[in-house]
């Protein structure tokens, strides 16, 4: 079976670099984009196996918008929204209820400080590996 490709989108170049390395070390290919618009262009011609999106990029809700657009084009591609928002504002997002799932097209929310082993577990679960 060929390697799965994961799209990581974040406007913080440091986080993007760290996440790319982390995910590559888990045995995946990684494609990166530095913002919502760059990612929107990318997915026109490229279908990732899974996406990890930052929430606040060009706009405060860039992650949501991007998630919606990816799901419209590739409904079966799992999406993780990575956010530091919980730690900073105390607002926690979750997609447990069906209603939330309809509204926000993401499969999982995770904290940006996630450990490698947790990340691996979550990715494997979503990719059904």
């Amino acid at each position, binding site marked *: 079976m060929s390697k799965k490709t994961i799209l990581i989108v974040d406007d913080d170049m*440091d*986080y993007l*670099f*760290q996440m790319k390395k*982390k995910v590559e070390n888990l045995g995946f290919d990684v494609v990166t984009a530095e913002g919502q618009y760059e990612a929107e262009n990318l997915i026109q011609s490229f279908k990732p196996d899974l996406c990890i999106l930052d929430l606040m990029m060009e706009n405060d809700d860039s992650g949501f918008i991007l998630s919606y657009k990816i799901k419209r084009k590739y409904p079966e591609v799992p999406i993780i929204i990575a956010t530091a928002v919980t730690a*900073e*504002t105390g607002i926690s997002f979750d997609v447990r209820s069906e209603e939330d799932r309809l509204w926000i097209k993401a499969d999982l929310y995770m904290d940006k*400080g996630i450990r490698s082993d947790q990340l691996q577990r979550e990715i494997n679960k979503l990719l059904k590996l």
Partner: protein
Amino acid sequence: MDLIKVLVVDDEPGIRSGVARVLRDFTVSYPFMDEACKFEVIEAPTGEDAIQIVNTNLPDIILLDNKLPGIQGIEVLEYISKNQIDVIVVMITSYASLEVAVRANKSGAFDFIPKPFTPQELRSSIETITKQVYFRRMAKKLNTAGKQIRFQFLSVLSHELKAPLNAIEGYLRMIQEKQMGDNLEDYEQVVNRSLDRIQGMRQLILDLLDLTRIESGSLNRNLQNIDIVQIAQISMDTVRPLAIQRDITLNFNHPDTLMFNIDAKEIEIVLNNFLSNAIKYNRDGGQVFFTLKVADEHLHIVVEDTGIGMTEEEMTRLFKEFVRIKNQKTKNISGSGLGLSIVKKIIDSYNGDIMLTSTPDKGSTFTVSIPFTT
């Protein structure tokens, strides 16, 4: 037009309707008010009714008769003061004994109107009170706005301070987990980026100190008649290494000396910010034109660059705290987002102006003019 609610508490219907008639077409305006105040009169025949109205439809002013059929006016006043209700109370009474007056005063009555009063007496009393109401409203408004701005500032600040910490922590974890393998050289980028972020954080803290110093007022300001050209030379020396790195030419156009009454440290902050921005947001091999001159009783500072420029919309946001214009062209340029808001605060405090013209991909020109103070 601002509306002020006046509650008249009196058991005589004639007094109540009289007040309503006098205030119906009355307006109060002072030069410091944006618009004139109008009045709406609410009537209550008893103290009990008055308390109910105070609790459901709080007026701004209460005209309160003391001698009422049930509870007395003074008891209404005491109820208001005990519950710390924000309203101005004026006692109207024909039986104002000294004892009642003292009690009323103690409970926070603002004024007395002796009964009977003429329409003119009522109007002039209301005029004074209206000024009071207006000031209270303004104070409240400013207080709320101030708190909100402070909260916004702090939440953005904590985000800005946390972002570099997160990045550095991430890099340290990469090293800890040896994510780049066992070869130390492979960690060069990791270490360099960490150092960059630490430097950015240090600059943010320095900028914050400047900002606090300026906001705390001109108490520590050291106004001196100094040669701005000399200060400008220091600023040029500060930014020159940055310019050389990117092959940017600095052109400095100035008289031999330019004496001006200003705080040396503050003008240096202003010049450093403009010059380093002109380099940071320039293109490699670009130019900076920096001019100092005096014209029309003003000091003029002009800093022009041949850099990335910005759109109209970006220009409107530029001087706000923690605003950094985010786009493809600026993504690799670091900054605290405080520089220009600090500059603006300094210039404002000298009653100066900042003008900005800019064209995307052509460059920006900042023009500052500060009046010679008398």
